[in-house]
């Protein structure tokens, strides 16, 4: 065992650090610094730079456009991205449907869809949740009925993140209405511009428009857009959920979040001292930091296991649970730190609104972010579900 990076890894770290410094879009940086909501174009500008460099899909196999980095190099890469405060790439194509397609798809599907995911030309969204089926994914009711070489799809999806921008969506639909729960489900790729697809915004507590309802009314989907066998979509869904859970630990990003809390706590005054000198606020930071270290080394141990041939197993639920709790604690501390200035509700920066927000620059997103981040223990399988998974699959009870 050793913790140190090898000389080659140190060189790699220098390389990616330099690349980011030289290539990260300047205007994207200012949009972030001022706390604006990011547009589709904001996300894509960075995506396209990475795609051009060939660094857009580090986790993919080389044959499909991956880079062949080692686990350590991927670790360094995500650390550097987070340290430089880069926006994330949208996970729906790169981390979710892409791996499903290259793992379960036909050669034609790979040829048709993977390039658009890598280039960013296709924006993807995920059609999983339904109003009646939250954590109980398998109870979904959206139906796809075979009609010649098409499926006719009817139903409603919800919590569809960024569907307002999407070109394509991957959907779980019921193709056998008589089968039970997880059987009789298929995995369909649906063009979001198809007739019958309607996207309606859901506004969340912080005032954001991130998620949507998606209505599907007699949407015709070519059979060739079904991935894997009919009625076997649950296999893709399970595979994808395990992939989603590892990314969800978000260690590097949370480290950066802790740094931001420290900066706020060094600025905010608490009596005659900066807030960070308040022993109880300091303790909350140190607890957070230590718990984050525990999560980081748990992820590293898990990655080492993967490298040794053990795929991401049900223990990845641990990463989801602890990762999401830590993300929430970071937002709690931010809101606590800003004191009175957590209260003003500011959603300016719209067209024609150039007024400066109320209070210090770091304050006006504290409450909305806190509210919004409650989702992390709910989505991707709620933390209760994750605990059920560990109980059943790891502990065998």
């Amino acid at each position, binding site marked *: 065992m050793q913790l140190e990076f090898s000389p080659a890894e140190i060189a790699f770290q220098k390389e990616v650090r330099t690349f980011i410094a030289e290539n990260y879009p300047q205007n994207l940086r200012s949009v972030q610094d001022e706390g604006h909501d990011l547009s589709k174009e904001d996300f894509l500008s960075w995506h396209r730079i990475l795609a051009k460099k060939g660094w857009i899909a580090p986790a993919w196999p080389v044959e499909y456009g991956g880079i062949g980095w080692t686990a350590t190099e991927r670790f360094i890469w995500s650390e550097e991205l987070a340290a430089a405060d880069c926006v994330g790439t949208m996970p729906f194509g790169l981390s979710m449907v892409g791996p499903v397609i290259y793992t379960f798809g036909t050669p034609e599907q790979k040829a048709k869809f993977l390039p658009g995911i890598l280039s960013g030309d296709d924006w993807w969204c995920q059609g999983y949740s339904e109003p009646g089926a939250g954590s109980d994914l398998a109870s979904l009711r959206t139906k796809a009925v075979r009609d010649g070489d098409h499926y006719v799809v009817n139903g409603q999806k919800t919590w569809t993140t960024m569907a307002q921008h999407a070109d394509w969506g991957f959907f779980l639909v019921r193709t056998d209405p008589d089968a039970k729960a997880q059987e009789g489900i298929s995995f369909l790729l649906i063009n979001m511009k198809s007739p019958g697809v309607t996207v309606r915004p859901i506004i969340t507590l912080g005032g954001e428009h991130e998620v949507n309802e998606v209505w599907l009314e007699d949407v015709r989907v070519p059979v060739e857009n079904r991935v894997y066998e009919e009625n076997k979509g649950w296999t893709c869904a399970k595979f994808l959920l395990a992939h989603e859970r590892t990314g969800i630990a978000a260690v590097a990003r949370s480290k950066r979040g802790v740094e931001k809390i420290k900066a706020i706590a060094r600025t905010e005054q608490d009596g005659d001292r900066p807030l960070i000198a308040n022993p*109880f606020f300091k303790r909350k930071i140190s607890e957070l930091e230590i718990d984050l270290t525990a999560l980081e080394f748990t992820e590293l141990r898990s990655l080492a296991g993967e490298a040794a041939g053990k795929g991401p197993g049900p223990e990845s639920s641990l990463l989801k649970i602890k990762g999401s709790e830590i993300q929430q604690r970071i937002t709690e501390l931010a809101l606590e730190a800003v004191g009175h200035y*957590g209260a*003003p509700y500011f959603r300016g920066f719209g067209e024609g609104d150039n007024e400066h927000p109320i209070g210090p620059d770091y304050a006006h997103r504290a409450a909305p972010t806190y509210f919004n981040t409650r*989702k992390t223990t709910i989505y991707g399988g709620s933390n209760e579900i994750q605990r059920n998974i560990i109980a059943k699959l790891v502990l065998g009870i």
Partner: protein
Amino acid sequence: MDFSYTETQDMIRETLSRFLADTYDFDSRSKMIASGTGRDPAIWKALAQDLGMLGASFSEEHGGLGGGYLENALIMEELGKVIAIEPYLQTVVLGGGALKAVGGAVADAVIPEIINGNVIIAFAYAEPQGRYNLANIRTTAKKDGAGYVLNGHKGVVYAAPWATHLLVTARTGGATTDVNGVSLFLIDANARGIVRRDYPTVDGFQASEIYFENVAIPADALLGDEGAGLPLIERIVDEATVAVCAESCGVTAKLHQGTLEYARQRNQFGQPISRFQVLQHRMVDMFMEVEQSKSMTTMATLKLDLPAAERMAAVSACKAKVSRSAKFVGQSAIQTHGGIGITQELAIGHFFKRATMIENQFGSADHHYERFERLTLAD
């Protein structure tokens, strides 16, 4: 010892509860907030004139019902149950509390106007650098002839856009955090030189940044003695803190109740989620937090008239506990609701937002634990 309410108190609660059930459903509240002024002035008038509610905590000589802290607490609890955005806390508890404490001509003049709903007061005390220290004040009131001239910046003044009067803390002497040199003024909200920047708050109220630019105020705007206002300010803020705790009891009771109702009708894995033991125990823990918040609020309400040190310890014990309960109950309610809990469309999310703001209003849990320790746990 006696823990029973009087008949009048029971009647106040019932009357108000019925009125709010009729007027303050979630849709009506959302419409008020979306309207031009961000509230419905008719509600305030009705509270004053149809229900006599604004007089509940004032003496009969001033035209009130002769009540006090207990009446404020039970009214705030009912307001909390509908997350009402009425300026009762600012006008009656803080403004009325200060006026009752100093008495005299100004009290005789203003209290009846509070009771009949003509006066709305906002409390301008917080400053950007001050956090929860009530003596951390840079706003100055300089003697100028018979009156004073106000200069400074007050932050996050709830209800200021609606206010007829501002209750302002300012320095008539001393350095920024000195205990001496603090004075309290009740001034006309529209006085020349007051610049407001108004905005909504995340919990549905309206608030302002207020800039005093050479605002001339008359001598009789001073409440109490010049430079010796801090004990008075501490007292009314303690009273307001307990009132907010009472509101929190209402807010969290509804968060708990709404969660119970949702869990009974939401099906997952073939049964109502209220059948899952982990959620059951969480809802039991929510119940226990609500009950203990009620107990602490009762305790602190009954101790508001004790000498300052005992009062402060009791209020801080109460707020420390209630802040944590508000956080736990709010977060648990959202988690149990799942995604639907964090949308704007359901009431539960808005109760959560108010509960979250209550956590830090008049001081975070940590702030109050520390004050409690200073007062009771000497080394």
